[in-house]
């Protein structure tokens, strides 16, 4: 930050307030409260142990990888409701391609093929949205139907089932699968992927020209185009990125489990959006943070997994999840407003 000359039109402002102005930092308060709640309510039953921590981190990781890409897309002013079914498509495709009875390919090769296909779908999503000028909400809603439908259709055509299991052996042989299923420093690979994806994308957003374009394309596409931002290219790239993130999540799930089913990933699209919003992204685009989306994913995962450790009757599971989400965003919002009333 440049040296600031003091200006009589500025009242003093603390570092703390400056921090809270960052889009993601409000959500940390939500995280603290949610974590605190479960530490108290469920600390005794294993929530605070290493195993418990790993448990929710793993869930957070998968959502977080997705949310990082979805957050970028949201900042870029678009939505992708098809990302959940993309996970299912990628998972099943990868599984069928490597399954000894069908494709029989090494898993690394099928990962590459699947990734290529996912990028194609992402490109198509973006192309369609920009070509038609239709809202991405409705285009990707239709794509969600098409993808999950085609997934069922093809899978049944090939395997007669909607589940592809029994990959175990072909996985064990492939060294690449360690990249998705291994562990490092006691944490599963997914968590490292999460960290990596979040940091890289956050860096892209904040430190590269492309990041600036994302903000521009989301904030006001007309204005951005008028000053020379290649809005089309930016948005298409973001759609492709989102599809790629879905493939990574699918790879982690398939290689971890040795099986895939067509329902995989269902509903993840809304969870990823929720994580991004909790983390400070605006639904209207042009504002948000990748780190925030990561924190949002962590909050959701802690709520989801933490409840199992408490004594709450699980019939009320969803009420708790909803209440916690609401509490977290309200708190986050309130704190941000409290510390800084700059914007209307």
């Amino acid at each position, binding site marked *: 930050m440049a040296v600031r000359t003091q200006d009589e039109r500025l009242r003093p402002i603390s570092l703390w307030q400056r921090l809270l102005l960052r889009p993601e930092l409000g959500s940390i308060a939500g995280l603290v409260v949610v974590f605190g709640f479960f530490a108290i309510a469920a600390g005794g039953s294993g929530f605070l*142990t290493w195993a*418990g921590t790993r*448990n929710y981190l793993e869930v957070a990781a998968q959502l977080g990888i997705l949310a990082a890409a979805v957050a970028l897309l949201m900042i870029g002013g678009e939505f992708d409701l098809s990302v*959940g079914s993309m*996970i299912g498509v990628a998972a099943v495709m990868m599984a069928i391609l490597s399954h000894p009875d069908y494709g029989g390919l090494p898993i690394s090769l099928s990962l590459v093929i699947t990734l290529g296909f996912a990028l194609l779908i992402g490109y198509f999503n973006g192309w369609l949205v920009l070509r038609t000028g239709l809202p991405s909400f409705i285009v990707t809603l239709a794509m969600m139907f098409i993808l999950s439908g085609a997934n069922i259709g093809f899978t049944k055509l090939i*395997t*007669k089932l909607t589940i592809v299991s029994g990959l175990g052996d072909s996985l064990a042989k492939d060294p690449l699968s360690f990249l998705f299923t291994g562990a490092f420093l006691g944490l599963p690979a997914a968590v490292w992927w999460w960290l990596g994806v979040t940091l890289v994308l956050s860096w892209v957003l904040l430190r590269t020209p492309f990041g600036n374009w994302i903000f521009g394309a989301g904030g006001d596409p007309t204005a951005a185009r008028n000053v020379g931002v290649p809005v089309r290219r930016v948005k298409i790239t973001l759609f492709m990125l989102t599809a790629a993130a879905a493939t990574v999540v699918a790879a982690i799930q398939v290689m*971890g489990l040795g099986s895939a089913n067509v329902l*995989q990933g269902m509903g993840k699209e809304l969870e990823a959006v929720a994580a991004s919003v909790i983390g400070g992204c605006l639904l209207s685009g042009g504002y948000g943070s990748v780190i925030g989306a990561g924190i949002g994913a962590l909050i959701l995962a802690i709520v989801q997994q933490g409840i199992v450790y408490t004594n709450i009757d699980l019939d009320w599971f*969803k009420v708790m999840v909803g209440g916690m989400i609401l509490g977290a965003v309200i708190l986050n919002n309130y704190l941000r407003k409290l510390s800084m009333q700059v914007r209307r």
Partner: protein
Amino acid sequence: QQIRIVVVSHGQAADPFWSVVKNGVDQAAKDMNVRVEYRAPETFDMVRMAQLIDAAVASRPNAIVVSIPDAKALERSITAAVKAGIPVVSMNSGSDVAEKLGVLVHVGQTEYEAGLGAGKRMKAAGVKNAICINQEVGNVALDLRCKGFFDGLGTKPNVIPVKIGDPTGIKNAVAAALQKDPTIDGVLTLGPTAAEPVLQAIEGKKLVFGTFDLSPAVLKALSEKKMAFAIDQQQWLQGYLPIVILANYVRYGLLPANNVILTGPGFVTPENAAQVIDLSKKGIR
């Protein structure tokens, strides 16, 4: 004129259990040389199901096959079909109400009884504290399986709701439940989408694990003795038999005398798992 039969079930096309039912339907259609259309709502949705049955009736098929998870909700649509002179056979659920609604034959198994059987089996294996993993809370068929299970076991219900599309979430939820309460010594899942992740969650733990319905991975686990049993309704027959019955009824007016045909529950255990594996891969069991 080829015979046309419409099947309306409450289970989604994507569900592994129901995809086997559909395979049975398709095979029967081929074997009997009839045209079959299979319809189902996207989620457990009685309103949609009633609407689908109504549409089926409007399309004037030669016969209809339905599942009846909620007799009250479907009563109007089914009786309308019967009144319109369309022969109806029910499958899977609804054995208790089928006759009252004017259904010719019921092919299936009651969910509650199957759950009860699972519970008794676990009790016999010495299980004292079990959990039931429900991947679609609100689907009455699954509710009844859990209910029967705990009735058979004779313990307080302890249902873990999980999300069907999230294998890691399922795995970790079960891991968390086991960590929280180490006295748990029995786990029941209600389908292979949940069973496969749970297999990982209980790896290395000593407990009795059973599931509803089969999949290649479940059978492999059975043969490796990682699981105690899998309940098999032989749902292939629930799809296959109604078509055969109806084809013969429409063509020749023939009907079995027994108006409830039970297809299960059959228990697959480590002892008999090997012989089913091949069939399972073909989508028959």
